[in-house]
């Protein structure tokens, strides 16, 4: 079986959302740590900003917002129709198989 290429991180984040119902920045980082964990771009601040940008550009949306123990916002995101459409158009073939 052909080895999957490593996707650009934003791409992989969007792909990850297509495999689950919803995710917070923490749960997303937990899942992608084995792929990008050693890279400098893999910081909570950077990923939170990327998620906010993806939301601003209409690829994902909020599914639920809560406050965590320290009173900080905890946003759950999910992929929307536009995100799914772009993913099916641009995702490399080897990543399309479930």
């Amino acid at each position: 079986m052909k080895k999957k290429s490593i996707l650009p991180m934003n791409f992989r984040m969007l792909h990850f959302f297509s495999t689950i119902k919803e995710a917070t920045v923490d749960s997303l980082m937990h899942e992608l740590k084995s792929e990008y964990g050693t890279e400098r771009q893999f910081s909570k601040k950077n990923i939170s900003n990327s998620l906010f940008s993806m939301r601003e550009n209409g690829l994902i949306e909020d599914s639920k917002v809560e406050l965590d123990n320290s009173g900080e916002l905890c946003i759950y995101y999910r992929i929307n129709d536009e995100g799914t459409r772009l993913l099916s158009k641009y995702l490399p073939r080897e990543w399309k198989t479930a």
Partner: protein
Amino acid sequence: MVGKIQLNHGAVIKSKQAKMQSRFARVGSAYGLLSGMTFALNSIILGFALAKGPFTLGVSAMFVAPLVAAAMNDSMTAIWLLIYNIMKGNFKEIIRSVKTKPGMMVCVAAILGGPFAMGSYLLAIQFCGPAYTMPISALCPVVGAILARIFMKQKLSTRVGIGMAICIAGTVLISFAPPEGVYPHFYLGLLFAFGSAIGWGAEGALATFGMSMVNPDVAITIREITSGLASSLIVVPLIAGMAMFGQLLVTPGTMVIIGIAALAGAVSFLTWYKANAMIGVAPGMALNITYSLWGLIFSFFIFGVSLSASLVVGAIAVTLGAMLVVVNPFELLANKGV
């Protein structure tokens, strides 16, 4: 969920979310404005470089010099952006992104925006000066809207139509009275400035494909690397500019000036793409277009260039018209909660 308070803190959540959103919009808008200011600086500094050796040697230099300068400017901008991305640990992302379809689209768009548009832009600066070039090139969203109408069958709304009409009126005002004496090929310069608007308009229309899936810092770096390589390795040899390119490399004074211009260019492109990612492509472009007005302000207050009333009024009209083409001012204000 472990560790999460599930109580209904509706009001607190709403206010925190609004605060976060407004901070994001403020930072994104500041990036957009900064991109306009630094692009104006890039153009003005390049205008200075074009008046120095080796760009002034020989009659043929008139056409060759701006394209050689454009190639060096794009290449040095790419180097600045590459340094920035390496410092941010993004180098691997550049390689990964360029292998994806949106990454390849950025490369295709870069050929239109780089060698074609930037080359025309600098030819225009050579023939009619930065103050006239900037407002005419700011017509690029109008071109983008026309291309979208022709190729994507997008309807032109009344707002876009009014914006275009204001732009045309502004353009007529700018073109009507050429500056006295300084530019014997003034109208040729304006023609090249229109060429740059066409190149950037087409780039904008192309680059929207899947761009939102690529990290903006990485996308702009791919764009500049492609553009720098295409300009230096294809355009410069085609116009027989290699000798001048070589001379430029051994002229430290001019190289430093282009290096500074390219730094302003790198900041401009980086902040433009960041603004696009943070507040959306249309508002990002609307703020970036203000470079035409910043250009006039810098030319007048810092560099002491005299400006005619028709140029100032025309540039304001083109900028406002172009902003109207890309964004609905009422929607923009409503989104920001103003």
